[in-house]
C-alpha cells in the first residue's frame, strides 16, 4: 500500500463569490498544503463542507486535485455517508477516479448500534480495493464507535486505520493495543496529536495545518526522532491556535483564517455562516501570534 503520510490536511473547499466551488483555488490550495508540510489532503470531508457539496462537485474535486497534485502528496477522498448504499457508490467512484484512500465517517443522525457500524464499514470496504480509513467523531455523529468495533473492523483487509476524534485517550489506547502494528491511528483533533502519538498513534488529519503545516510537521518529526521535549514545546506553542479554530463549528474559523492570511477560499455555504464580529476579532488577534506556513 502507498504510504499515506503522518500529516494530512482535512482541506476546506474554496467557493467563489456566487458560492460555486472554485476548482482553480482548490487545486492551488492542495498544492500549497503539500508544499507547506502536509503529506496529503483529505478532500470533501466535514472540513470540506461535505454536507453541502453535491456528489458531482465532490467527484470533480477529486479529479481536478488528483491531476493538479500529480504524484505529489496523497489524495484521500471523503466518501462516507449515513446511507450505506450511497457510501458504497461514492467510494467506488472515488476508486475509479484514482484517489489513494477514502475516509469513512461514522453514520450521523440515524444512530446505528455497534453491530450496524460494523456491517456498514465492512460492506463499504468489501466493495472496493481502496484503503479505507474509519472516522470516529461522536461530537458530530452522536454515536461513538467503540474500541471493540474498531478492533473487529481492523480484521478487514483494506481497513487500514482510524481517524480518532473522540478525545477519549483510554479508548484510543485500547484501539492501538488491540490492533496489529500496521493499523494506523491518526488523531482527529489538532490538540490531541501529541498525546495520541505518545501512546503509539501515527499522526494527524489536521485542520490547523492549513496555517501552520510546517510547524506541525516539525512537531511530528521531532517526536518520531525522540526529541520529545522539543515536540512538546511546539505542541504548547500551537495549542491556542488549535483552540481558536474550534471556537465555533469547524470549518467556520479556519476558512475565515485562511482568507485572512491572504489565500482566497470564500465564505462557507449555508447553513454555516461567517464568524460574528467578536469571533472574527479573536481569530485575527490569535493569528498575529503565529508564523503562517501556507504560501499565499
Amino acid at each position, binding site marked *: 500500500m502507498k*504510504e499515506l503520510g503522518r500529516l494530512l490536511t482535512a482541506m476546506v473547499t474554496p467557493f467563489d463569490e456566487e458560492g460555486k466551488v472554485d476548482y482553480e483555488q482548490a487545486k492551488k490550495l492542495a498544492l500549497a498544503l503539500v508544499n507547506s508540510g502536509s503529506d496529503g489532503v483529505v478532500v470533501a470531508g466535514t472540513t470540506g463542507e461535505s454536507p453541502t457539496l453535491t456528489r458531482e462537485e465532490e467527484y470533480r474535486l477529486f479529479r481536478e486535485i488528483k491531476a493538479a497534485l500529480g504524484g*505529489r*502528496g496523497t489524495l484521500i477522498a471523503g466518501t462516507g455517508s449515513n446511507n450505506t448504499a450511497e457510501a458504497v457508490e461514492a467510494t467506488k467512484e472515488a476508486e475509479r477516479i484514482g484517489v489513494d484512500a477514502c475516509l469513512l465517517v461514522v453514520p450521523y443522525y440515524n444512530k446505528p448500534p455497534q453491530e450496524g457500524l460494523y456491517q456498514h464499514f465492512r460492506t463499504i470496504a468489501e466493495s472496493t480495493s481502496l484503503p479505507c480509513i474509519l472516522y470516529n467523531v461522536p461530537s458530530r455523529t452522536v454515536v461513538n464507535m467503540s474500541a471493540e468495533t474498531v478492533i473487529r473492523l481492523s480484521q478487514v483487509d483494506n481497513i487500514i486505520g482510524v481517524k480518532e476524534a473522540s478525545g477519549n485517550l483510554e479508548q484510543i489506547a485500547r484501539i492501538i493495543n488491540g490492533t496489529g502494528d500496521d493499523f494506523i491511528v491518526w488523531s482527529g483533533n489538532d490538540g490531541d496529536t501529541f498525546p495520541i502519538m505518545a501512546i503509539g498513534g501515527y499522526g494527524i488529519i489536521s485542520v490547523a495545518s492549513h496555517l501552520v503545516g510546517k510547524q506541525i510537521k516539525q512537531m511530528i518529526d521531532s517526536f518520531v526522532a525522540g526529541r520529545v521535549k522539543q515536540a512538546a514545546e511546539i505542541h504548547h506553542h500551537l495549542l491556542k491556535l488549535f483552540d481558536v479554530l474550534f471556537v465555533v463549528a469547524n470549518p467556520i474559523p479556519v476558512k475565515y483564517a485562511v482568507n485572512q492570511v491572504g489565500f482566497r477560499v470564500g465564505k462557507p455555504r449555508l447553513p454555516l455562516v461567517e464568524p460574528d464580529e467578536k469571533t472574527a476579532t479573536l481569530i485575527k488577534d490569535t493569528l498575529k501570534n503565529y*508564523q503562517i506556513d501556507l504560501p499565499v
Partner: protein
Amino acid sequence: MNGYSVAIVGATGLVGQEFIKVLLQRNFPMNLVHLFASDRSAGRKLMVGQQEIEVKETSPDSFEGIDIALFSAGSEVSRHFSPIAARAGAVVIDNSAAFRMEPWVPLVVPEVNPEDIKWHKGIIANPNCSTIQMVVALYPLHKVNPIKRIVVSTYQSVSGTGSAAVEELTVQTRQVLEGQTTIPHVYPHQIAFNVLPEIDVFLDDGYTKEEWKMVEETKKIMHADDIAISATCVRVPVFTGHSEAIHVEFSSPMFPDEAERILAQAPGVKILDDTSISLYPHPWAAAGTDEVFVGRIRRDVSHPNGLVMWVVADNLRKGAALNAVQIAEEMIKRDWLNPEGGKK
C-alpha cells in the same frame, strides 16, 4: 559617487543568498544594500560582509533611491514590482521568466550579447539557467561557423527549484537508505535515486516550458531565429550544478581540435577535456565556481557537420546570480545605466 545603491528582491531565497555572495566576492561598487522578501521572511537579519542587514517586506516604496534592483522572487513578484522599481529610477535585472520574451526587454548573457543592455527601458532580463551555460559555450563557435541545429539533453540539479527541493532530496535520500517509503512534496515523483523528465509545466506540444525556454531564449540571445533547437530537460538528484549533453550541427564541418582552440579563447569558458585521465566537467566540481566548463568535445559520428560536447556550470552562479551581477558590471563599465533616450 563611490558606489551604487543595490536592492535584492527575494533575498532569503537560494539565488538571493548567492547574489549577496557574488556581489561581495567581486567587490561590486556598492555603498548600500537593501534586502527585500515576502512578509513571511521580513524581519530576518542577514549578514552582508561584516554588516547585519534586516530583510524588509517588498513594497511599492521600496525602490526610492535605488540604482540597481536584482530580482529573484518568482515571476509574479517580478511582474508586479519590476515596473514600479523601474519607474522609481532603478534598473531592474530580473532573474524570473516574467519579461524574458518581451520584445522591449533585453535578454542578456554578457559573454554573448552585451550590446543589448544599451537599449533597456529600465528592465533587463536574466535568462534561464540551462540556456545561459549553453549559449556561453556555443556562441563563440557559432560566430565562426553558423549553427544550423541543436539537440540538447539536460541533467539539472534540484537547487534550481529552490530550497524546498534541496530539503526534499536530503530527506528522501535518508528515507530510502533507511528503508522507509517516501512521499513527494515538491516534485511529482520521488527525486532521490531517480531522474524526472519534467521541469516546469507541460505545454500542448508535449514539450515542457523549460524546454521551450531553451529554444526561444537561445534564439533571442544569439540573434539567430533560424537555428533549429530541440531540448529534453531532466531533473537529477544532484544538489548544485546543471549538466548538458549538446549535439550541434554547423553549416560546415567543425573539428574537435578547432572547437577546442576557439573555446580556449572564449570568455567565461574553461575546457576540461582529457579522457586519458578522466578529465571532464561534472557538477560536484563545478558547484561554487564561476566558469562554464566544457569537455567530451568530439565529432558527432551521425552527421558530417556535427559536434558533441558536455557542458557544466553552477546553476545558482553563472546560471543566475553571477550572470545578473555581470550584467550590472557591464552596464556600469559602459555607462548604460540610464535607459536609452530617457532621463532618470
